[in-house]
């Protein structure tokens, strides 16, 4: 039996009205995540992965942004159209977020104590002393040495990895049901990345948190996620459990991503196969599959009609008309 999803996004579409025209940032995205599970969202810049998750938290500035359609449900409760006031009882309390850049996400003028205790005083009604004790125990959990002493410090007195730990401590202070982590380790060195990913896993195991992990790094996906959603030009092009996606990618874009990355476990001298060309201009999306201009398997049909996500295996979905997998059995890329 599959556990009931705690967060469900259905057919979400987000547009931005810009000087260059209407940008279709997210075009009908659906996914769900269950308690204790980690869903990875992978895609390149402009694929809509961050916008999707800003929408979940009600953080899309409107205008210029506009949520055109769709639904976002947290434990069955619709978050779109909820008042800011009601939303603020969920945001930070039930659904928390970790941002990519801990330097800009922390307030440089406030001490770590101010920033860490604010969350629990608002959401959990802690008084000053219990908020402080809670903050100390959270800092301890994320592995910051001598937390009592560090509480009075300002963000600039911490290193990048330490700031990211503070962000995680803040996000997990209220034991959220859902944690959205947008490139949480991209700005960090690999040894610190390993520490942070391990920490997130431990905290997830103890509290059954559902995690949505947004990244562009297939290595991070492989080591941290149960299921994966691959996004391209505002749409999900493939969705599968992690093992299946890596073993048997069913969308040419997923295969292209895997073939174009340098990897430590490849034989030396392996030639990279880049995906030629550029991602499409999101203001000029015509009909047809948005990947077809860069796809070596594209046929006429791909240019005329947009493929929908369809079932390709017991758990996997892909949006592609062409059955190209037989062709690539020899291991050639797109």
């Amino acid at each position: 039996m599959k556990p009931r999803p705690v967060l469900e996004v259905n057919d979400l579409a987000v547009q931005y009205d810009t000087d260059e025209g209407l940008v279709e940032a997210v075009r009908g995205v659906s996914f769900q995540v269950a308690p204790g599970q980690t869903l990875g969202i992978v895609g390149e810049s402009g694929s809509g992965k961050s916008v999707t998750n800003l929408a979940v938290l009600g953080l899309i500035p409107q205008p210029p942004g506009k949520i055109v359609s769709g639904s976002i449900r947290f434990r069955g409760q619709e978050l779109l159209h909820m008042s800011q006031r009601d939303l603020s009882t969920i945001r930070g309390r039930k659904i928390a977020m970790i941002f990519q850049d801990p330097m800009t996400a922390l307030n440089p003028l406030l001490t770590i104590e101010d920033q860490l205790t604010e969350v629990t005083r608002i959401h959990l009604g802690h008084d000053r002393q219990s908020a402080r004790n809670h903050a100390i125990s959270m800092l301890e959990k994320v592995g910051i040495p001598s937390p009592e002493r560090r509480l009075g410090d300002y963000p600039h007195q911490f290193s990048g990895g330490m700031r990211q730990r503070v962000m995680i401590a803040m996000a997990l202070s209220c034991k959220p049901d859902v944690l959205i982590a947008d490139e949480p380790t991209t700005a960090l060195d690999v040894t610190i990345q390993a520490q942070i990913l391990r920490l997130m896993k431990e905290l997830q195991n103890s509290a059954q948190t559902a995690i949505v992990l947004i990244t562009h790094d297939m290595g991070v996906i492989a080591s941290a996620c149960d299921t994966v959603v691959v996004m391209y030009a505002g749409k999900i092009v493939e969705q599968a459990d992690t093992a299946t996606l890596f073993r048997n990618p069913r969308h040419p874009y997923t295969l292209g991503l895997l073939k174009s990355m340098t990897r430590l476990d490849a034989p030396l001298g392996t030639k990279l196969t880049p995906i030629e060309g550029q991602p499409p201009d999101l203001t000029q999306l015509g009909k047809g599959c948005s990947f077809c201009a860069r796809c070596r398997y594209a046929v006429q049909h791909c240019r005329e009609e947009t493929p929908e996500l369809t079932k390709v295996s017991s758990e996997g979905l892909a949006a592609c008309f062409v059955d190209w997998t037989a062709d690539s059995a020899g291991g050639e890329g797109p």
Partner: protein
Amino acid sequence: MKSRAQVESRSTSQNVLEVKDLKIHFHTTGGPWERKRRIVRAVDGVSFHLQSGETLGIVGESGCGKSTTARAILNLVKVTDGQVILNGVRLDNLSARTMHPHRKQIQMIFQDPYASLNPRMPVGRLISEPMKIFKLYDRRTRMLEVIRLMELVGLDPGFMNRYPHEFSGGQRQRIGIARALAVKPQVIICDEPVSALDVSIQAQVINLLMDLQQQLGLAYVFISHDLSVVRHIAHRVAVMYLGNIIEIAPSELLYQHPKHPYTQALLSAVPLPDPQAESKRDPIVLVGEVPSPDQIYQGCPFANRCPIAEKECTDLKPALEGALHSVACIKA
């Protein structure tokens, strides 16, 4: 001093670039209210050589001194001690004016293709500018060179009159590469040239750099924090930690048989894009973080985080030893 003598004996015509015992120390204060002066040892005794047509990768975490080393090679920061030798000529003690003619031999590609191109210059002028500065060719030939270079790096010469903002990140990095190639250098210092690019575009630029090296016999110093990118492109790799090279070896040796415990930890921390292999792996997770480079260490700079450190490691700083595969660790 044996290793120094070896380096010396190898410094024949085949070495285009040599760096000997390079030290770069910055003097800082803790801010306007702090009296105490501190010395930050950004680079603390780095030596390597580079042959023509070769790529030397330099990897390490932020703050290890890899970018400062790059800037010192180009005489963009003041060298505290040591030597930088390009084709037998010492660069480190040259003034801006006397350095100028040597810049034709050694060029740089920067990390951020958005910040490194003048937004008010069309691409054609951006690429011809270096030739103009070195008074190469007449106007017409320069124009032909721009066309040749744009084709060489995979840009349509028809876009010559467009401005940088009209190009994507990957295309801008191609413009940066064309600019570096415009004066026909022997050595190019690449400082994180693909870090700002998406994976699929990264592969395009890596392939381009490798093709250009084969065609033109360029030598690269390739600086990156990404171990898998460096493994792909570099012939030899140097690992830096806290201003020191702690291991340097041909790629296949370094990646297959890393000897220094820091290199081992670094390699095991890179997540593999293979869920099965990943679930079986047990990465060496280092405790703590890189210490501040403004303190003086007696022993091995890695000793306080090293899983196999012993008492003697904190007594004496280990020297880089071994001819082909050099490592600075008394336990390796």
